[in-house]
């Protein structure tokens, strides 16, 4: 079973939000959809769900040789910036309601929802109103519901938003387990460490176009040796980032990574107010690659 996004175009007035986007998501696979704000990620997800009608192209579900337009209720969804659930009602009522409108009986939804809540440590809040939960807990409850609906594919738009580091780690583990169980997951997140660890493939979307896509490891390998790891004598990496131009990222308090030509690095090193202990060639992280691809989109602070 595969979900195919084929040459999708979407325009809002003068803004061309999607310019011939093509993607593919199979069962048992996590596809990371990355891009800066306004790249078109949420627009694409809404097109897949049928909440937005494309101007061109199509979204197809391919199963056993048959191809058809998928229906919205076949997806488990976390929409970014959306409440996803009724805040004034209990978690259980929310689950039964949103399961019901997708045609699922309570006897199917309730045990699955309770099992997911148990896994998220929220089982004892089943009858509590959503409003009484913290932002992170609400996000977990919405995710538990998306999973309890047992959809064909999961579309998660910024699912780690509001989660604490521990919950984020748990969430990562859950994504990997879901993948093993055969779920197809489309994941958009600015939490690039999570995406790097869990995704099989990534697609970089910029101004409505897929700039690059491919297996995560292979994409990073393509850039192996193209970047430089700079070890500092003092833990000032984060502070220095503000003054450095595009292409720079921090890999820890004392380590900077630069993805770009040697000449640019040499020029930047000359201006660093901190002693440099070591410079070595290295493979970039997804964050470094992201900054390299999209850092130029905004003027650098020093410009």
């Amino acid at each position, binding site marked *: 079973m595969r979900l195919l996004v084929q040459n999708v175009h979407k325009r*809002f007035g003068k803004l061309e939000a999607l310019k011939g986007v093509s993607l593919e998501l199979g069962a048992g696979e996590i596809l990371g959809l990355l891009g800066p704000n306004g790249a078109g990620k949420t*627009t694409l997800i*809404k097109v897949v*769900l*049928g*909440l*937005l*009608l494309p*101007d061109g192209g199509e979204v197809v579900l391919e199963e056993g040789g048959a191809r058809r337009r998928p*229906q*919205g*209720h076949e*997806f488990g*969804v976390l*929409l970014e*910036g*959306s*409440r*996803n*659930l*009724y*805040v*004034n*009602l*209990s978690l259980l*009522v929310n689950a*039964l*309601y*949103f*399961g*019901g*409108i*997708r*045609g*699922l*009986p309570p006897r199917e939804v309730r045990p699955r929802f309770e099992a997911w809540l148990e896994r998220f440590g929220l089982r004892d809040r089943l009858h509590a109103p959503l409003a009484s939960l913290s932002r992170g807990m609400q996000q977990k409850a919405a995710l538990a519901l998306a999973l309890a609906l047992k959809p064909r594919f999961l579309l998660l738009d910024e699912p780690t938003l509001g989660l604490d580091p521990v919950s984020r780690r748990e969430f990562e583990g859950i994504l990997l387990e879901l993948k093993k169980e055969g779920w197809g997951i489309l994941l958009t997140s600015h939490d690039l460490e999570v995406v790097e660890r869990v995704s099989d493939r990534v697609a970089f979307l910029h101004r409505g176009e897929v700039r690059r896509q491919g297996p995560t490891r292979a994409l990073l390998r393509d850039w192996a040796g193209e970047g430089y790891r700079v070890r500092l004598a003092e833990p000032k990496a984060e502070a220095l980032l503000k003054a450095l131009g595009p292409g720079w990222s921090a890999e820890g308090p004392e380590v900077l990574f630069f993805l770009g030509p040697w000449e640019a690095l040499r020029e930047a090193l000359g201006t660093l107010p901190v002693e440099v202990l070591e410079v070595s060639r290295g493979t970039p992280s997804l964050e470094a690659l992201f900054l390299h691809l999209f850092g130029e989109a905004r003027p650098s602070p020093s410009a």
Partner: protein
Amino acid sequence: MLCWQLWSEFLLEWNLTRRYWFDTLAGLLASVLFFYSMVLGLENLTPEGLASLGLDLGPLLLVFAAFNLVVGTFQSIAYSVQSEAALGTLEHLGLARGGLLRQLLLRALVQGLAGITFSLLTLLPLVLLLGVRLTPASWWPLGLLPLYLAALGFALGMGALALQFKRVEGFFTIVQFLFLPYFFSLVRFEPWMTHLPFAPGAYLLRLAFTGEEVSPGLLLLALVQALLFLGAGLFAMAWVYAAVRRRGLLGRY
């Protein structure tokens, strides 16, 4: 599948009523007090009471309950669209099996049934307080049907506007003039009222509530008119739903 979609709307209605029980109770009391004080006021206008004005209290009570139901239905879909958009859950309703339109229609149906329950709960204390007997004709549900379907058609039209503009309360005030024919036709029905919205249905309802015989011609006219409004409402809603999905306005508030 459809039964679970309908069941989920009952679940939501019941839980919202429970959650906001105080407001529900206050609304019920307000409705009873409003009508009771109106009747007292009218009775005090003449020393001979309401009968001298040609008003029969029993049918008047029933018409009042029906009016509440029709007005409630009329606003239901637009109100659902507006509140879901404000909460940020409208797009999730769009993921319902069969789509948003089906789910909103099911919700309107459930809200209609809740409206009937509310009306009956309003009638009960009024009947006891005023000591009147309600003697509608046995075919009264048939009399109510065209009016309800016409109101549903208008509700879909208002829902279509709410999908596009989200907040349409101001427009409601203007559109409520559509209910004037409802009141005209409660007194008498004349040929020129045939094409007025709600007029044939309301007159049919009057016949039912005053215990008169059903008029097949009028029933047919009211049903045809109601189905036309319903069809137009469905078309408007489907058309605007597609338009807002093209323009990316569905989830915006």
